[in-house]
């Protein structure tokens, strides 16, 4: 029995066995198409469709949105999502494709939308039938997120939106977007408002989605152009001018520091048959055992051994920090560990992939389409892709500012 199982309430224990029973019979099996390392790299519609079917099945089985109220399509429980996540991960199921919807849009809608909008949007968001994307970044608003130029103008009961969003992951599949934009040009922070916007139904009618190509050659993110898109006022979240406050709810959840647990599945090997998990130190050790260095295996090289164990210690630290963060008596400041979450996990994955591709030595030069690329070329790819997340969701330099200012109380760097 695991540590978390031991502290299950009777109701939670029953839910856990329900999840286990369902997963034992309903694992979707091997995907018929190639599934990339993460949902944000999805570009093949068949892969997306297969993953959406998986999310729908898991939703129908009660494992997604468990902690949301029944009226908005949830399970009406408390403290159940974490259990479902553990069981899905243990069963090595595929990841869930509506990652931005569940991780960012859902909690924001839940805390800030009017009741009928919650009931309208959340069921299909949680089931994965509607894919969501996030319209925050702009050409002139990256780390300086409040410098929004996309403008929403009030027109009776509607808003007319014009502007340009960039780095918009999943927009090419998205039905809906969470949108931060400007409604008042005279006030940087209090001049922002927050909307939910149906973009797929408006394609060619005020919305244009164009792919941006990542440094890896993969698509997956986009730019989104708005030209006189009209949306009803009921799709505004919270007050006009309260957009920054609403965006903080989104960002807290995006950075793993929000009150609602994001549904998460995973553990299934991706990208064909390689069986490589690019976030696992165990995979790195296996890799080191199968590559030569200085006349021995790389796993026998003292310098690499030191680097590998260092990574293992960091991985253990992340887990133990999360555990300690839940014990109020053992933390000096309630946000001290939650605000580290995004920073440390993205840098860990980056450094892990960096050590791993070096272990491959000369063969790490081979691109993933080369038949001789070790591990299907996954490690160099993971290393390149890791920069997506050390930059996104507030570059890690911004995260360090936030920690320095909010937790250590240092003066603001602006």
């Amino acid at each position, binding site marked *: 029995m695991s540590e978390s199982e031991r502290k299950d309430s009777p109701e939670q224990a029953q839910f856990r066995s329900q999840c286990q029973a369902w997963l034992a019979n309903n694992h979707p099996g091997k995907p018929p198409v190639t599934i990339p390392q993460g949902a944000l790299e999805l570009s093949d519609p068949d892969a997306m469709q297969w993953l959406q079917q998986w999310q729908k099945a898991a939703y129908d089985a009660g494992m997604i949105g468990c902690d949301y109220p029944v009226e908005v399509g949830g399970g009406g429980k408390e403290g159940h999502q974490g259990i479902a996540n553990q069981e899905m991960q243990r069963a090595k199921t595929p990841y869930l494709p509506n990652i931005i919807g569940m991780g960012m849009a859902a909690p924001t809608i839940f805390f800030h939308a009017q009741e009928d909008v919650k009931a309208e949007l959340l069921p299909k968001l949680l089931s994965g039938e509607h894919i969501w994307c996030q319209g925050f970044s702009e050409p002139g608003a990256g780390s300086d997120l409040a410098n929004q130029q996309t403008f929403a103008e009030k027109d009776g009961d509607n808003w007319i939106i014009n502007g340009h969003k960039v780095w918009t992951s999943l927009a090419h599949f998205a039905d809906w977007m969470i949108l931060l934009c400007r409604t008042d040009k005279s006030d940087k922070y209090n001049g922002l408002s927050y909307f939910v916007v149906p973009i797929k139904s408006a394609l060619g009618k005020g919305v244009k989605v164009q792919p941006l190509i990542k440094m890896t050659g993969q698509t997956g993110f986009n730019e989104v152009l708005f030209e006189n898109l009209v949306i009803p006022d009921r799709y505004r979240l919270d007050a006009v001018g309260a957009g920054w406050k609403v965006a903080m709810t989104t960002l807290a959840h995006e950075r793993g520091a929000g009150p609602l647990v994001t549904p998460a599945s995973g553990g299934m090997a991706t990208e064909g048959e390689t069986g490589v998990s690019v976030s696992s130190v165990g995979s790195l050790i296996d890799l080191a055992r199968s590559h030569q260095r200085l006349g021995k295996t790389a796993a026998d090289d003292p310098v690499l051994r030191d680097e590998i*164990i260092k990574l293992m*210690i960091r991985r253990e630290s992340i887990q133990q*920090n999360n*555990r300690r963060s*839940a*014990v109020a008596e*053992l933390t000096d400041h309630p946000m001290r560990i939650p605000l580290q979450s995004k*920073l440390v996990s993205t840098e860990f994955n980056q450094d892990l992939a960096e050590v791993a591709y070096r272990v491959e030595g000369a063969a790490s030069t081979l691109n993933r389409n080369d038949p001789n690329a070790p591990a299907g070329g996954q490690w160099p790819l993971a290393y390149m892709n890791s920069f997506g997340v050390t930059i996104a969701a507030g570059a890690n330099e911004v995260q*360090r500012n936030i920690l320095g200012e909010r937790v250590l109380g240092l003066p603001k760097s602006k």
Partner: protein
Amino acid sequence: MAEQPKNFGFGEDEVMLRDSARKFLSDHCSSDTLHRMVASDFNLDRPNDCVWDQALWQQIVDLGWTAVCVPEAAGGIGMPAVAAIALAEEVGRTAFPSPLIATLSATFVLNACDSAAATDALTAIAGGKATALALTNAEGEWDSAATDVRVDADGRLEGLAAFVQDARKCAQFIVSARSDAGVGLYLVSAAADGLTLTPDSVIDLTRDQARLTFKQVDAIELAAPGTGSAAIDAALPGLLSLVAADMVGAGEWLLQTTVEYAKTRVQFDRPLGFFQAVKHPLVNVMLQIDNAKSLTYHAACAIDHEPAEALRLARMAKSEASDMAVFSSSRAVQFHGGIGFTWECYVHLFFKRQMHSQVLYGDAKYQRALLADLIMGKAA
């Protein structure tokens, strides 16, 4: 797999002990008091002082801190290992000069010995008898089988033990000694005939350290020949965790002190902490302290709940804490600027304590080399 409690074993009693220790030590050992006590003299040729507040030690004994991990059957309180670790963190936070960490370390070793003599020694510790470990040879090898002391057929000790921590503050020593049957553990009074204590001149002003030479010294056997190394190894997770916790506490003092300085010291019309060249490394210090702290609690909790995992977890904690000790102390001196380089500034007291702690029982890379052997198997 064995299980750990979610709260690392920090129940109400352990939290209360930690909070009262924090208050007691901040009341009685402010940095100002400490500096006046141990750093009043900066002459390198000064005698090897061993300055500490013995009246305060008696209060600590009365508070029961030496008894926390002594079993109830031996007259102690019988708290879990995290209680000792919580105390060590508070000792580090004030760089408090005392034989407490030495004595808590001795407790872990005695708890791993199975003899009436060990139980008696534990009872004495619960009553406040300061005790140090003399387990290290002249080469400073952190190996439970390495000792330069021999025990003869009559049970008398001959040889030397080096790098004995807080030796002059302690009334007795636990000594590892070899005979043909292997390493055993022995209890020796500081006043024993034939025992000579030669103080080391150490950089860390908050500790003392000494070399013990034994000439036909009478000793009480705690662990029979051939069982001593196993007892030391069993205690090692505790010893590593105590030093790691000390470094965590000292690291937090260095961080908070440097943050305060960065808020108030103005250059280029701005407080230093405005500049990201200062702010971001301070955040990195915080990240590393949190890692070391969580790993240390995890290791300490394993001593009681997952003993088979404890050594692996304690080496992880010691590794991370040692790296953190170097980084937290180097950033503290650097960001204090010119004043940070002076004797007058309190930072060097903690800087030197971190220098000392990081090498005790092996530095970070030493721990990782052993972890690699443990986890990946020995290198070819």
